[in-house]
């Protein structure tokens, strides 16, 4: 429906992906240098200027499989590898987190604030790399240009378009269950207490007016006992740096299970500043393909220098109960995916091939991956 929903979807999913990867990199005690490089590479690719210019063009939101393709590519933008099970879990966590944020977002225009929270966090994550920070600032500019003056109706259209994307997803997420924001049936909790959105009043009053428009009476009516709403908080800031007020979109993995998301009084946790350099991949100036998606994944599939040894990240915790990011889902068969990408032009094939359910983990990284690449190459 809305032609403006895609950048919002992408930025928020990307933000959540970085939060989760950051948490897993720490949990698996991946060496600092490697962890830093991975995060920087991924954020750098996400914020690629040309990529963003394409993303922000008015267009329909991509179907689920296409989004999955994009994030598979992104996750493999660096020296990190994820097997299929881990990638599935990563994607489930990302999508449920963004669904949650959009679902309980008090008013549709607050989506901009939660997107800025993600952007703020990405900037902190890569602080020190001026190229990436410059690109992030450019994205902030795109957001302000395209979204800062949207009406409530236009924002709700974006929100309803994205809720359609997330419809019927009820995967249970440990951190949400523990934080009592998700029920055992997978539904998110809609609170009957707390502040109402800006522009909304605490329910319970009827005001009467005379012909001159003056208020002549104000009569209260009782609300159910389960309700305990409060007046709205101050509006969040849309400045490049500012207090967004809402905790939605902040990194819930940085603190205890309570999380900044779930305890509104906790200060926003900050990442350590990182000093890393990254060389931008050379951008092919091939004319953009008709389908926006083709170009996007093309840009993501650009040959990258992968200096340093490749390592594997897992999202399957050894002890599922204590693992913050474990999901209550059955593990699937493992498929090794070789992510040493070449440029790809036939996207439908890639999308279809993502649902490969080949058995038996391969010995070397290359074996299974080659089939995928061959398929891609044969279509170019």
């Amino acid at each position: 429906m809305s032609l403006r929903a895609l950048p919002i979807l992408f930025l928020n999913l990307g933000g959540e992906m970085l939060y989760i990867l950051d948490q897993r990199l720490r949990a698996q005690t991946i060496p600092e240098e490697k962890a830093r490089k991975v995060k920087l590479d991924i954020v750098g690719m996400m914020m690629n200027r040309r990529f963003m210019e394409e993303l922000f063009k008015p267009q329909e939101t991509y179907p689920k499989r296409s989004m999955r393709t994009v994030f598979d590519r992104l996750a493999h933008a660096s020296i990190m590898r994820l097997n299929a099970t881990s990638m599935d879990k990563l994607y489930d966590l990302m999508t449920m987190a963004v669904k949650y944020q959009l679902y309980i977002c008090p008013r549709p225009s607050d989506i901009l604030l939660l997107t800025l929270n993600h952007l703020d966090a990405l900037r902190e994550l890569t602080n020190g790399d001026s190229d990436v920070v410059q690109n992030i600032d450019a994205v902030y500019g795109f957001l302000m240009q395209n979204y800062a003056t949207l009406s409530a109706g236009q924002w709700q259209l974006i929100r309803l378009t994205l809720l359609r994307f997330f419809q019927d997803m009820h995967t249970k997420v440990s951190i949400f269950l523990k934080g009592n924001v998700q029920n055992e049936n997978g539904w998110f909790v809609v609170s009957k207490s707390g502040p109402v959105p800006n522009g909304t009043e605490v329910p319970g009053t009827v005001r009467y007016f005379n012909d001159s428009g003056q208020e002549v009476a104000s009569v209260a009516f009782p609300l159910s006992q389960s309700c305990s709403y409060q007046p709205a908080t101050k509006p969040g800031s849309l400045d490049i740096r500012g207090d967004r007020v809402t905790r939605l979109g902040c990194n819930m993995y940085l603190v205890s299970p309570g999380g900044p998301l779930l305890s509104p009084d906790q200060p926003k946790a900050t990442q350590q500043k990182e000093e890393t350099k990254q060389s931008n991949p050379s951008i092919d100036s091939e004319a953009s393909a008709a389908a926006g998606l083709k170009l996007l994944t093309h840009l993501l599939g650009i040959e990258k220098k992968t200096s340093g040894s490749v390592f594997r990240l897992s999202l399957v915790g050894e002890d599922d109960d204590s693992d913050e990011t474990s999901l209550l889902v059955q593990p699937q068969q493992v498929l090794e995916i070789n992510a040493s990408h070449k440029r790809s032009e036939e996207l439908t094939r890639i999308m279809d091939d993502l649902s490969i359910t080949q058995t038996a983990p391969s010995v070397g990284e290359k074996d299974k991956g080659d089939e995928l690449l061959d398929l891609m190459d044969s279509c170019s």
Partner: protein
Amino acid sequence: PDENMYVAQRPISLRSSVSALSNNLSAISLSDRRSISYAAVHKSVVHVAHWTGGQVTSKQFSPEEQSSSSIGHIVQVSWCHLHSGRNVLVLASTRGLQMYDETGLLLLFSFKLSSIHDQSETSFARGICSVGDSVCVGTSSGDIQVFNVAGKGSLVTLLNTLKDHKHPVCDIHSIHDGRLVSSDDNGKIVLWDSASDFQKLRAIDGDGNPCTSVCLWNDVVVGGYGSGHIRIFSASTGKMTAEIAAHARWIHAIDVAPDTGLVISCSEDTFIRIWRLPQDGERDVKLIHSETIDDVQLVGVKFCDKQGTMFAVTGYDLGEIRIFKK
């Protein structure tokens, strides 16, 4: 025992969940007065359920299959009862509108929205109601297209285009005397008179807050807003007489029971509330019932009868229609 107590009935199971769209429930008594038919949108299919006393039949149909070209995204579905006695099922989408016979099986008519200049804005149809033998459908440009539907067969002609709204239309509602009320994303409400060639009777300005759902009852215009307010206006003067801080979140639908002046509202705050409009000489609006469906953001509500003794409600991600009866 509270005489205003509405008790939950057996819900109607749907084949899949309901989508997050405003006014996403339509209810009508087709042919036999005892049966009630419901329609709601799930992504690109339409759920249709028929309730007759104890029995329920529930099915879904996919408009894409009927159409030669893509119908885009469905925005709303609504039964329309026409003066000739005929009922049609109307679908509003991002491409335009489609009109089916009452079974939903036969496509009668398709109307494609003209392409707009501004490519960054989606165009869509939204807001459906019938008046006399006409079906009125709002559009994202603000225009309301009025179609005349023949008593039989598939002859549907564009009768009129009502121009006033400058923002996307949210909802349209009509009453028996031929008056029509429409509302838009900017909160503006317009009254029209179909009996005098759809002359504009009155306009009530908006303040940027979408009036997502609107209805008319005697001399009263009632609007439900994205801010959670319900506002009551005099239809003859256009002045606001009351403002209710009714819900803590976005209101997606309201409905009125014509025989009793009951208004029902549903919201993303999970609540359904029923209000009694002031009768002659009275001033006060009374809250007579409040109901919650935990954790479900409600997107469609309709009274099932003219007195408002029964109502049906739907919510995003919910795979059923919940029914309540006094």
